[in-house]
């Protein structure tokens, strides 16, 4: 390819004739290089993963064996929303407590994880109490429009939640043994979407398991 022109060494300013002879092009055929370039390009495009996985953070209560039952259950029954997650992507929900000693067991309502299922129920129930959902949504909108900054928004929501703590919805998510991991993530997701401030991930009680079994037979 590249040739050294040693002719000039003599200093002789020989004529054009010599230069003309060297006119053979110095250009190289770039096509294989392009091929190589695109081959590598394809390889890197295919091996790159763009979408990083997301994560939802969940904080579980500290396990304390000394915690007594009377310390728990301080939430008024009419605000306690129990969600029983079970097989076939079905959710049953009821208010209050399922304890045979406290009288008749509450009736189960059946719903799904869709937009018109669980979310509708949660938003309706939320709205029946303090209009937490609507207010928080309004603030969210203000943040988007730039009227409110993120920190202000957070403090506002926090104060608001504190203020109405006892009269807002408390959701207990209770998957049974047939529930899938997806169901739990979906349920937790609904908590975020519906602005439910207080929720907990618990295990279903034997009474509730029985209720689910009954419901699977009777509720259509």
């Amino acid at each position, binding site marked *: 390819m590249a040739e050294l022109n040693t002719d000039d060494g003599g200093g002789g300013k020989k004529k054009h004739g010599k230069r003309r002879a060297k006119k053979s092009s110095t250009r190289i055929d770039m096509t294989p290089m392009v091929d190589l370039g695109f081959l590598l390009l394809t390889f890197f495009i295919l091996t790159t993963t763009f979408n990083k996985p997301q994560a939802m953070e*969940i904080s579980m209560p500290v396990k304390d064996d000394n915690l007594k039952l009377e310390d728990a259950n301080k939430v008024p029954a009419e605000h306690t929303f129990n969600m029983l997650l079970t097989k076939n992507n079905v959710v049953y929900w009821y208010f209050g407590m399922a304890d045979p000693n406290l009288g008749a067991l509450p009736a189960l309502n059946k719903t799904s994880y869709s937009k018109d299922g669980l979310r509708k129920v949660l938003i309706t129930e939320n709205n029946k109490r303090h209009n937490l959902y609507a207010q928080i949504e309004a603030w969210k909108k203000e943040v988007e429009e730039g009227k409110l900054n993120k920190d202000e928004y957070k403090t506002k929501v926090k104060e608001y939640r504190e203020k109405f703590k006892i009269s807002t919805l408390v959701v207990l998510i209770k998957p049974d043994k047939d529930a899938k991991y*997806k169901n739990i993530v979906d349920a937790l997701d609904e908590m975020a979407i519906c602005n439910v401030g207080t929720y907990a991930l618990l295990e279903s009680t034997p009474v509730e398991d029985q209720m689910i079994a009954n419901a699977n037979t009777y509720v259509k």
Partner: protein
Amino acid sequence: MPKNSPSIDMTPMVDLAFLLVTFFMLISQFRAEEAAVIDMPSSVSDLKIPDKDLMMVLVDKEDKVYFNITGQETRTKVLEKMGEKYSIVFNDKQKKEFSNMASFGVPMKSLSAYLNANSTERKKMQEKSEGIPTDTTGVCELCDWVYNGRILAPRFRVAIKGDQTTSYPKIRRVMDILQDKKINRFNLITNMEVGPGE
């Protein structure tokens, strides 16, 4: 030969190609192949999971449990600790192999053989294996992995990566193990979902 040669100057094209190659080389990161195939559920959460300083428990659709922790040094140390506990001596080659691996899901007794095997054999072993034992009554190897990971890397974020169809009791068991080790705050790894729609 016609006077106007049909060949075009390829130089700008080469420039472009190599520019893009450089770009993709710089942004892509290679990671070791995961032992588990996991189809994660999606959520609206937009919290990004970091690539480093992470301890992860994976549960696949057959409820097999896998473990992963980032950082070569940490991995080697964790393996040494586990070796001490289960009286298994790992040689340097195995330690190196382990530090370069991603997640794994074999019990301690077959870990040594797993580390010696090549990648095809490993896949087979992984398929046959029951995953890391999480028994409540018998041996809970996952408890020890999590414990040692926690001791050696206390600042690491803890995450659970489960498959959509993983059964709840298994996830609960993993959560309980984490809680027993005083890890009350952890992440559930999910895929991104577009908007709060269905």
